[in-house]
């Protein structure tokens, strides 16, 4: 017999995934506002920010209620703790998307600094990390979660590469400083999105295997 607690957990998971899809779409639209020079995409991101914030509050309330009323144990407890943390990460991803959208609106007032090569790669990587971390949650797939952790270094390398390249543009031509600086901010925000996806993947590993892999240097369990 399925208990209503299990239905509540499933419903919570679905709400979290919905929030994840909103955050993921916001990132995609914000980056494409820059890449495709589509300002209206940035406006959509700004207008949908509240929806993500409302989801965060709703999910927090659901978690709080289930913790208080059901006093969950073991995998159920780990799931709720993971959802609570993932909820925070998804909201932050939504904020990073808003930052990118705001940069997009500013950068579009200037001529394009350079052809975009690394930025789309970085964006694909970061979006893929968010998507896969949530897929790992749905499937309880630790290997997929681990692959997200491994991809974080690639995002960091692309950010460093982009920084260096944009610095050379700025040094050569002071007229591009404003736009190049905005692109650096976009890269920085994408890198942070990768970090949040990494956090989500770590929470999935905690939920599925009960292992805390957040700080490997501490060598716990």
């Amino acid at each position: 017999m399925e208990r209503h607690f299990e239905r509540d957990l499933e419903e919570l998971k679905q709400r979290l995934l919905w929030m994840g899809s909103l955050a993921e779409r916001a990132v995609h639209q914000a980056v494409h506002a820059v890449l495709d020079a589509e300002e209206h995409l940035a406006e959509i991101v700004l207008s949908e920010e509240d929806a993500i914030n409302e989801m965060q509050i709703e999910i927090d309330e659901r978690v709080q209620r289930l913790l208080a009323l059901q006093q969950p144990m073991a995998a159920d407890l780990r799931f709720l703790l993971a959802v609570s943390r993932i909820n925070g990460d998804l909201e932050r991803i939504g904020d990073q998307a808003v930052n990118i959208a705001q940069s997009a609106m500013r950068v579009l007032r200037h001529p394009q600094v350079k052809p975009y090569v690394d930025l789309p790669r970085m964006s694909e990587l970061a979006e893929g990390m968010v998507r896969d971390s949530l897929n790992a949650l749905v499937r309880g797939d630790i290997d997929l979660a681990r692959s997200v952790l491994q991809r974080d270094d690639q995002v960091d390398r692309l950010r460093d590469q982009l920084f260096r390249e944009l610095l050379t543009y700025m040094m050569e031509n002071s007229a591009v400083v404003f736009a190049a600086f905005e692109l650096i901010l976009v890269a920085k925000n994408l890198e942070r999105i990768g970090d949040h996806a990494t956090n989500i993947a770590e929470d999935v590993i905690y939920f599925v295997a009960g292992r805390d892999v957040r700080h490997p240097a501490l060598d716990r369990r």
Partner: protein
Amino acid sequence: MASATQGKHPAAERIAPEVRMTEPTPTGSEKDSPLRFKISNLDVFYGPKQAVFGLNLNIPKSKITALIGPSGCGKSTFLRTLNRMNETIRNTRVEGEILLDGQHIHGMDVVGLRRRVGMVFQRPNPFPKSIYENVAYGLRVNGFKGRLDDLVEHSLRRAALWEEVKDYLKKSAFALSGGQQQRLCIARALAVDPEVLLLDEPCSALDPVTTAKIEELMFQLKDSCTMAIVTHNMQQAARASDFTAFMLDGKLIEHSETSKLFTTPTDPRTEAYITGRFG
């Protein structure tokens, strides 16, 4: 506008009455604690029916060990084996080894064993005597010659009951509430200064406030008294014990630190039981 110090929530004061200046001492694991009981290959039979199968378990000193499992899994049978209470049931047979501080309990004088290993039952069972006599009885039986009044008071204080009954010591124990009766039974057990206290669902008939008192009492007592508690209340096991053993069909399935067992159990049967998916 209210200042930061005004209107502080009582819960916040309870949690952080002052800034903690020293690092808290982590709870030791079983490995760090000397053993009180060492149980090896324990089988218990009621006539032809076997109730406990090849159980191996260590109960560390000055810790609380909780025994959980569905009804009929053998946890109460196991608990009663530790002070040979099962011997009062006909056709009970016990095989295997139970060492208390390194000594075989089956080689001990049973009265002496039960003085060292006291027991509190599910339903409070005070004697039909006064509150005072309930506590003093065990002392008299054990030939205690000292100042009885002092020891009765000491035991009632240890059981967190003194303040509530000190003016009514001559009253019948049955005049007390259920929670008070249960604490009186604990005081009675504590009077003979046992090294171990076995508690068989001591709170199942009590309300949450009284249950909290008993749990607090257990926490206060554990430095001087090792405890093993059978409980059906998972939250109680999680709150009140240092170690938890999960039993199923007479077998010990998993035994580990309580914090680990309730967050990351290793056996899927433990997981299923504590998350309420069976049992």
